[in-house]
């Protein structure tokens, strides 16, 4: 049996038409948890940011690397995929992770859609 998973991007934000043509830097501070519903709602409302050169996720604690990729991160991944496809900056759109355990690789399953769209996930020099 096939199950149709509704696209939450379209379902929750039918008019996600906010374009930020001048935006070059986006910082997302997550505190100690996952992205909050408010944050997701705002991100989903952004349809394009063609000049965006980098996105940084900042965390007050280590990202937990031993869990399946799910929950709000799935929405983040879909949104990133969409934004990355519309970026016109040379070299594509990198996602930086701050507060990442130093020397630890970013696990393969993190932001899979974004990676498939050519996005890069890097750890920041300020990592622990």
């Amino acid at each position, binding site marked *: 049996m096939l199950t149709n998973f509704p696209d939450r991007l379209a379902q929750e934000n039918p008019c996600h038409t*906010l*374009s*930020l*043509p*001048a*935006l*070059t*830097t*986006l*910082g*997302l*501070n*997550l*505190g*100690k*948890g996952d*992205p*909050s519903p*408010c*944050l997701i*709602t*705002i*991100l989903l*409302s952004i349809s394009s940011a063609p000049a965006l050169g980098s996105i940084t996720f900042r965390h007050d604690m280590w990202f937990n690397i031993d869990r399946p990729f799910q929950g709000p991160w799935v929405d983040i991944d879909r949104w990133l995929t969409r934004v990355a496809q519309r970026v016109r900056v040379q070299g594509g759109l990198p996602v930086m992770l701050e507060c990442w355990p130093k020397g630890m690789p970013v696990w393969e399953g993190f932001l899979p859609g974004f990676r498939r769209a050519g996005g890069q996930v890097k750890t920041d020099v300020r990592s622990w």
Partner: protein
Amino acid sequence: MNSLPQELIDAIIDRLPLPSLLFSSLVAKRWRQRSQQRALEKIRFRSEAQVNRWCTGFPQDPEGIISYVRVIRFQDIFSWDDPAIFGRALKSLCSLIELCVSWTDIPVELPGQISRGEIGKGITILRLHRTSCTLATTMSIVLSFPNLEVLYILDSGAGSEGPRRSRPVASQRAPLDSLKLWGNSGGIGKTLAESGFMFRRLSLDVGLSGVEQLIMLSSETVVELALHGV
């Protein structure tokens, strides 16, 4: 010592810790001005008595050494016996570019004094940190500074509600440089958006009302966006 080029003297003074500046100003005449400039660049009042001493005991000549004051901070002054003293302290500071108000009551007459151009004409940076004033007073202050560029609001404007007063200013103002809006700041985000403020840099607590409107209003101008999603 006096044969050193002025640039070198200035560079030495710029590296001195603040407590040493009183002594460095006494080294020689050529050391005095830079030392005084640095010593008086940022001043902080932590009580009404300190403000009073500043107004009565310090020469209030706008051309004198008080012209070195660039940043003024009022901190931990929860109420005023004489609210007018807040404005008096600002009045003669003609070089002031930054006003910080932290854990301090803002007298209601201050926005009027600013709007009339009596004080704070050169202020471009306003920091409000845990002030107890109402949303109406906070907005009046923000709107009263004609040359505002940078606005930081943390846990302010959530005092008991007075009459709401917002008016569109978008047509009168170019986009401001930056807004930092964090913490429990009542409806300040919504009111800023309703007033038509646009910014080039936004740092916003996503739990606050009006955040989406602020981003939407600044959609053409925003270069840096930081969202705090806790």
